[in-house]
């Protein structure tokens, strides 16, 4: 199930009479040149992406990089100019209108940046919406919606209207509305970006908590690196409609593929993000006296706490099965926390 969602050679060019422009794009013309020559806007440029089942996949990029465009191709709110999208073996682009509606109803649901709740419907009606359009009997959708209302912590708000709720609460409704249909895929378009930092962090925890239990395939869009690192099991970075790096979060921080990516990560606190397993050297050993053993998922800041307690200035790393798999010396630790020299020169 490694290639649950498969995107192949996906192009999107906005504008009228722009099918011709595709050929120029394929020959490698830049976004600016294209706009000048043909008045067409390049939205997505040769996207190839595999998204595994049951993981949170983050797509990150600045505004205008095409991330919202990309996510809307998955449920075909936007039609591609060229390319292939296969989800669980189904070629999404070949669905006819009726099949597409059913596909949206059953297989994926979406959470929006500005919540996009129905202002004229009550909270419970909002959560029921995805089930209601499927003409499911009222008894069943009432029960399901009540369940999700409780699950996101809004019990008792059934008959309120969205604008009577705070932003954070509204997005809980948005989340419940998306989860109520039991769709396998959850598309989250900057879902927490409009919330203030504390509420955002709280919502991230809600999502992580739900994901532990639900194991949905989540495509999460954000422009916020901290958010991407907190919830993403894999991160794709978009720039001007192309993917510049698609990797796990640790590798993105340690090996940014180009300046654009290193720009992104320049302000993060490395010691709080990088994990022990990413910098350790492989090393098989038995337990030693006076040498602390740490978990491989521990972040460097905590490793530092442990390592300073010892005389030898090194620690052993164990995996989840309590087996020792590596070690970290003080030197390695410092190199890990330190920003690469070329970055320092660049931003000095």
């Amino acid at each position, binding site marked *: 199930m490694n290639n649950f969602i498969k995107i192949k050679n996906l192009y999107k060019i906005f504008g009228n009479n722009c099918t011709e422009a595709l050929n120029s794009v394929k020959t490698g013309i830049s976004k600016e040149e294209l706009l000048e020559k043909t008045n067409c806007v390049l939205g997505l440029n040769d996207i190839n992406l595999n998204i595994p089942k049951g993981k949170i996949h983050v797509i990150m990029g600045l505004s205008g990089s095409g991330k919202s465009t990309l996510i809307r191709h998955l449920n075909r*709110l936007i039609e591609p100019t060229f390319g292939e999208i296969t989800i669980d073996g189904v070629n999404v682009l070949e669905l006819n209108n009726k099949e597409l509606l059913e596909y949206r109803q059953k297989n994926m*649901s979406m959470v929006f940046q500005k919540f996009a709740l*129905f202002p004229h419907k009550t909270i419970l009606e909002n959560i029921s919406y995805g089930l209601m359009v499927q003409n499911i009997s009222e008894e069943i959708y009432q029960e399901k919606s009540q369940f999700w209302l409780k699950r996101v912590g809004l019990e008792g708000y059934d008959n309120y209207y969205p604008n009577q709720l705070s932003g954070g609460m509204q997005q809980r409704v948005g989340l419940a509305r998306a989860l109520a249909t039991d769709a396998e895929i959850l598309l989250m378009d900057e879902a927490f970006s409009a919330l203030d930092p504390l509420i955002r962090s709280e919502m991230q925890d809600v999502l992580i908590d739900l994901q532990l239990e639900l194991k949905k395939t989540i495509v999460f869009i954000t422009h916020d690196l901290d958010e991407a690192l907190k919830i993403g099991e894999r991160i794709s970075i978009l720039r001007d409609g192309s993917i510049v790096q698609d990797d796990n979060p640790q590798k993105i921080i340690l090996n940014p593929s180009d300046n654009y990516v290193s720009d992104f990560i320049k302000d993060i606190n490395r010691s709080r993000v990088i994990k022990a397993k990413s910098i350790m050297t492989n090393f098989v050993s038995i337990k030693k006296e006076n040498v602390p053993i740490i978990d491989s998922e521990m972040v460097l800041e905590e490793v530092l706490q442990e390592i300073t307690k010892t005389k030898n200035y090194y620690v052993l790393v164990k995996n989840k099965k309590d087996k020792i798999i590596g070690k970290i010396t003080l030197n390695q630790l410092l190199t890990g926390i330190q920003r690469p020299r070329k970055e320092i020169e660049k931003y000095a």
Partner: protein
Amino acid sequence: MEWLTKFPEMDRNGLREFKKTVDNAFTSFSRNYGEGIENFFDPLLSFLVGFEKLFLNTPWPITIFVILFICWLASRSIIIIAGTLLSFLLIGYFGMWEDTMSTLAIILVATLLCIFIGIPIGIAMARSNKVQALILPILDVMQTIPSFVYLIPVVMLLGIGKVPGLIAVCIYAIPPIVRLTNLGIRLVDKDVLEAAESFGANYWQKLFGVQIPLALPTIFAGVNQTIMMALAMVVIASMIGVQGLGLPVLRAISNQYLALGLMNGLAIVVLAIIFDRVTQRIGKRMQRYKSD
């Protein structure tokens, strides 16, 4: 240099021929099809007459009670109810009860007709820019052409009577509801519509579940305007045989009866105010979800 000072106009014979041709063409059209068209509107006539009879034959206390009850359902406002009661008592006392009932009947029928025709047209306009581009100029013409001008073909076709009057009122009153239905639907938040789409709502589910409910306050502003314009047409419509408050006003103009004109004119104003306040209240109550 004559062509500079005198506009090079069509010669007189040609112009006369031109007008004659148009007139004759329309006359023969109305001779051939007038009866068919009249028959087509027969159900409308009986509908209107039925309404009028209902209003006129119901004992006045019951009529007032029903009107007050409807106003209460729609507005839930004591002030509006009290004002309405007072107005109708005064109208009756000054001997305008029957004319007022006739006017109410035609306004009601005209408004219903405008709603049933206007809202679907507005929806069609909101759905397609091409339809909008086609209909907007027609609405512009309907709103700006002097009403007397379209009275001519209507009277030629259908003669003098209630139905031509009703059609004239509708032509004048329908543009606002069409425009505001179109506008209301187009103003529905794109994000919300996208959300409905992302859950797999089909066209009708989006229309009746999201677009129309959210556009309803705007649509209702259109209904309000339509009623106001229909009332404004009452006097002109009475020139082609529509009963009601317009007729005494018309008589007052030609005979310089100041009191008669004022009384009936004010009765029209009072009706307008009641309709306006009540429909505005409905519009506001539809937006309850916006308040905390």
